[in-house]
Every structure is written in structure tokens, then in C-alpha cells.
């Protein structure tokens, strides 16, 4: 899929018309203004600004310890920001609990996989579908019809989501017994089950071999296209970032040092310096 911004192809939109791809819904799903956080006097993230379109894929890169995961944790309110505003779909996230942020449409994966290891793959996905199901504790304990209706639907939905990564045959496996790559995929499926409008992927390619990474690149695009959601990812694998992202934000020492399209970033001297050190050293 060629996504060069200057010659974007015509794509169909829900109304039936064709539009330039660059003009397709660009109202931001995520807007961050002057975001900053201090850890006991130490400034971890400072003046972080970015916006993300409804169906954009963006990359967040930077050297180790630059504060990338901290930005994710700020986005999900795992850590409360000291300064700044985060808007999801135009709603301020201030004071919201992480689970409320999830209900606002942000789903995430974790750098070191956090699955419900002793539960089955299917159960993992169904926990993601928790808020899609609507029946009370009473209805559950007395097994009223709504229990069965909801469970049936979510069983099917869970399998459907799993089949996105061709994992439906593993539904009964314990999540902890899956091979590494499948665990990463399951985490993404679980996140997608929450019906997000923004998916945060924290180093999705970590520990993957080149062919798996290639597969992942395809899948990230498929996720964006089939679920029509925005994806923000942290990644060290430059091939993946350059190959899949529409826009890239480079972070160093908690500050944005560059922003732009993959081409711009690759040739930006400030970025090169941050990654490789000064040329004369």
C-alpha cells in the first residue's frame, strides 16, 4: 500500500463518493497540548504536542529512556499529567481513571506483554468485550435470557476478532502457553475487542524476526483499514516505523525534537544526532 501524501489515490468514502485519501476524515481523534509530567522534580515529559487523525498511523520514536512509554501512560492516565491537556474525540481526559479512558475509546498493549495468563485466549478477548456485554450481576446469577444472548453474541464476536489474526483455533489455549508472537497478537486482539477509536501499541515488534515484523506491518495497516481507527505506536524497528507510519514524532529527553513524515524524519540532522551522537564524536 503506497501512502505517499503528495500523490494520494482516490478512495471510496461511506457516502459513495470518491475522495482524495488525504482529505478523508482528518478530524483528530487525539489531541495533546503542552503535555508534561514531573517525577519528583525531574521533568520526564515536557511540552508534548501532537494531533492524530481518525484513521492515521503515527509512530513515536526516540532513544531509550526518552519518555515514550511515559507518554502512553499519560494518555491512559496510568500516570496523571502535571501539565497540559489530552483530548480524546474532543473530550478532556483529565481526572478520568484508566478504565474510563478505555471506555472513551483508547486501547493499548504493553511493552512487556500483560495478558491474563491463566485464562483462555477466548476469555482474554471476552474480557476485552466486557463493556460490550450488557447484563447485570443478578441476570448472570439467575441465568436470565439476557445472559445467554450476550454471551452468545460475544462468543461469536471474540472468535471473529481472533480470526483477524487467524487465531480462532487457539481459543481454548491458556494465554500463557501461547508462543511469544501469538501472545503479542492476542494482546492486540484484546485491545481491539474494547472497540477503540485509538489503538496504542507499545513496541509491537519487540522480539520478532524480520518476517514476523513484515507480517505485523501488514496487520497494522489492516487494523487501521478494517476497523478504521487511528494507531499510535512506539517502535525501535525503523523499517516498521518508516514503512507503516503516516507521521512520526521523535522524542528525546522528554521533548519532541522532530515531527513529520518518514522521509523528513530520516533526513533530519537533529534526529540523526540524537540517535547516533554528534558526527565528530
Amino acid at each position, binding site marked *: 500500500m503506497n501512502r505517499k501524501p503528495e500523490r494520494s489515490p482516490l478512495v471510496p468514502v461511506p457516502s459513495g463518493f470518491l475522495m482524495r485519501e488525504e482529505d478523508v476524515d482528518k478530524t483528530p481523534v487525539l489531541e495533546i497540548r503542552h503535555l508534561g509530567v514531573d517525577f519528583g522534580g525531574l521533568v520526564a515529559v515536557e511540552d508534548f504536542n501532537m494531533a492524530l487523525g481518525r484513521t492515521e498511523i503515527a509512530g513515536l520514536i526516540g532513544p531509550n529512556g526518552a519518555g515514550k512509554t511515559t507518554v502512553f501512560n499519560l494518555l*491512559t492516565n*496510568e500516570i496523571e499529567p502535571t501539565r497540559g491537556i489530552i483530548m480524546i474525540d474532543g473530550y478532556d481526559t483529565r481526572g478520568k*481513571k*484508566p*478504565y474510563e479512558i*478505555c*471506555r472513551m475509546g483508547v*486501547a*493499548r498493549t*504493553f511493552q512487556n506483554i*500483560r*495478558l*491474563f*495468563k*491463566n*485464562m*483462555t485466549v*477466548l*476469555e482474554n478477548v*471476552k*474480557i*476485552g*468485550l*466486557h*463493556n460490550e*456485554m450488557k*447484563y447485570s*450481576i443478578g441476570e*448472570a*446469577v*439467575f*441465568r436470565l435470557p439476557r*445472559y*445467554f*444472548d*450476550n*454471551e*452468545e*453474541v*460475544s*462468543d461469536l464476536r471474540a*472468535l471473529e476478532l481472533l480470526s483477524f489474526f487467524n487465531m*480462532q483455533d487457539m*481459543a*481454548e489455549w491458556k494465554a500463557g502457553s501461547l508462543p511469544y508472537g501469538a501472545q503479542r497478537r492476542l494482546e492486540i486482539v*484484546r*485491545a481491539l*475487542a*474494547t472497540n477503540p477509536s485509538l489503538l496504542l501499541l507499545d513496541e509491537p515488534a519487540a522480539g520478532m524476526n524480520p518476517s514476523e515484523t513484515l507480517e505485523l506491518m501488514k496487520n497494522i495497516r489492516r487494523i487501521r483499514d478494517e476497523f478504521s481507527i487511528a494507531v499510535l505506536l512506539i517502535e525501535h524497528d525503523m523499517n516498521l516505523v518508516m514503512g507503516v507510519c503516516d507521521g512520526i514524532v521523535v522524542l528525546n529527553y522528554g521533548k519532541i525534537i522532530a515531527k513529520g513524515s518518514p522521509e523528513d524524519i530520516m533526513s533530519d540532522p537533529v534526529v540523526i544526532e540524537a540517535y547516533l551522537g554528534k558526527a565528530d564524536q
Partner: protein
Amino acid sequence: MSGNRRAYFKRTLLNTCLCLAFFVTVNYMIGARILNRYYTNILNLVLIYVVAAVSLNLTCGYLGQLPLGHAGFMSLGGYTAAIITTRFSIPDIGPIPGQAVLFFLATVAGGIVAMIAGVLIGLPALRLKGDYLAIITLAFGEIIRVLVQNIKITGGAMGMGGIGKYTNFSWGFFWTVMVVAFTFLLVNSRHGRAIKSVREDEIAAESVGINLTYYKIVAFAGAAFFAGVSGSLFAHHICYLEPGNFGYNMSIEMLVMVVLGGLGSISGSIIAATVLTIVPEVLQTFATWKMIIYSLLLVVVMIFKPSGLMGDFELSAARLIRKIFRRKEDVPQLPENYTEGEETDEQET
């Protein structure tokens, strides 16, 4: 799958039949004096401990928290119910004996008082991580004990006598079925999955939209209710309550039962509660070494099998029957995983 109605009704029918058969048989044996008073007493005690252990499993095994004040909730339920039954009476309503109605209502009231206490203690405590929860529930248990010792209505340190011996096999069995059914049906629902996800990984659970505090409170309240029920049964079994009945050691005994049976296994809790109640009653030599053996068991089991002896394995009548008759299910392509049952069942493969 959870949504499979037919399988659910089949297993419920099977389990209801099994429960009824067990109930009728034992009642016949008691009536015909095959089980004498001594054994009946032990049997009642077993059921009381089963109620307490299964309810503790909800917080300990499924929610993955470590409350050390289970005896405190039992104490609240026991005293509340005992105060009600010793002060009030209900006339017979036609064929229904008023005393039975009173005992039922008192037990429910005991459960509700314990549940309210569970929520009150849970609200602040559950925002904290596991080890603080352990210590705060322990503190709560001690506060209850001091309160009970120092107020008049409970008889203070002297204890409270004159409680009617209302607990019998039927009541014990009724409440056992209630707690088992409640726990099983809750755990195998979206709410139960949420509770289990809290045990597995709080951060991940919250990231997929699970309200941690809410589900901790739900599990806590449910467990406290049945602990209160068990306390009421206990009070009307020994007929005399003193503050020392529900000490730290009782909380620990419950914990041993849950840990040995398996964290997250209802049938495990039932078996462990049964064995650990009967053995010290029957073997006096064991009784004197009881606490040393319990403590060693705790350490050894944790080191070698941290999920408890049975883990989260459940006995299943339906699965057993299928195995015996070697019925080859024409399994459809979608995995036919688990359906619901009432007492001792889960997972069919």
C-alpha cells in the same frame, strides 16, 4: 461456550438431581440413626466450613486478594443472627414453622450486616495493593473482636449463651448449595471474568475497561455475605458465642482450606474443607499437631504448587458421566468449551 443454553439446562438438571439425591439419602440416614448425633454434628460443621471456605475462595482464589479478616465477617454474621433469634420470635404460619423462618431471616440479616461491613472496609482498603489489603483486613478483624468484647449486646468477654440449636443438616446443605451456585454462576459470567482479570493483572484489566474498585467490592461483598451466613450457622450450631471463637486462627484455617483446595477451585474448597474438618475431629493426635501441620502445609504448597493442590480444576458430574459412557460427542468445528452446571462442575472438553 458460555452462551450455550441447552448444555446449561442439561447440566443444571443433572446437578439438581444429584443434590436432591444426596440430600434425601443423608436425611434418611440421619432419620434412621445410621448417622448418629456425633457424625451429624461433624457433618454440620463440615457444611459450615464449606460455606466459609467457598466464600473466601471468591476473594482469595478468584479476585486474588488476601483478606485475613474472614473470621471477622463470620463473627459479625454470627452475633447479628444470634441477637435476632434470641430476642424475637415468629409464630408458625400454617405448616411453616415460625422458628425456621426466623432463623432464615436472621441468617440473611447476619449476611447483610457482614456484607455492609465488607463494603465499608473494602472501599478504602481495595484502592490499595494486595499486602496492604491483607493487613487492613487483619486490623478490621481485630477491631471487630475488641468491639464484640466491649459492648453489652454481645455479652462482652463473658460470651453469649442461650442460642437455639437451629443449624441442622438441611440448613447447612441449603446454604452450601446457595454459596456454591452463586459463586459458580457469578464466576462464569462477564462479571466473574472481570474479577478473575483483576487477579491476573490489574493494570491490564483496567486498560481494557474493567472498573477495578467496583469488582473488588463486588467480590468482597459477596464473600462477606456468605461469611456472615456461615457465622450464623456456626452460632446456631455451637449455641454459645464468645469473642475468641472468631479469632485470627479461624481466618487462617479458612485460608488453609482455600489454599489447599486450590485458588479458584470451588470443588477444591469443598473437598479441603471437608477433609480438614473431619480429620482433626476424628484423629485426636492430629488435632494437637493441627496448627503446625497447617502452617507447614501452607509453606510447602506455596513453594511447590502456588495455585493450590487442585489449581483451578473443577470436578464435573457431567464430564464424569461422559467419560464413563465414553459418549463420543460430535464436536463441531468451533470449540465447545464450557457450559454451566450447578454444583461441582465446569469445563467439558
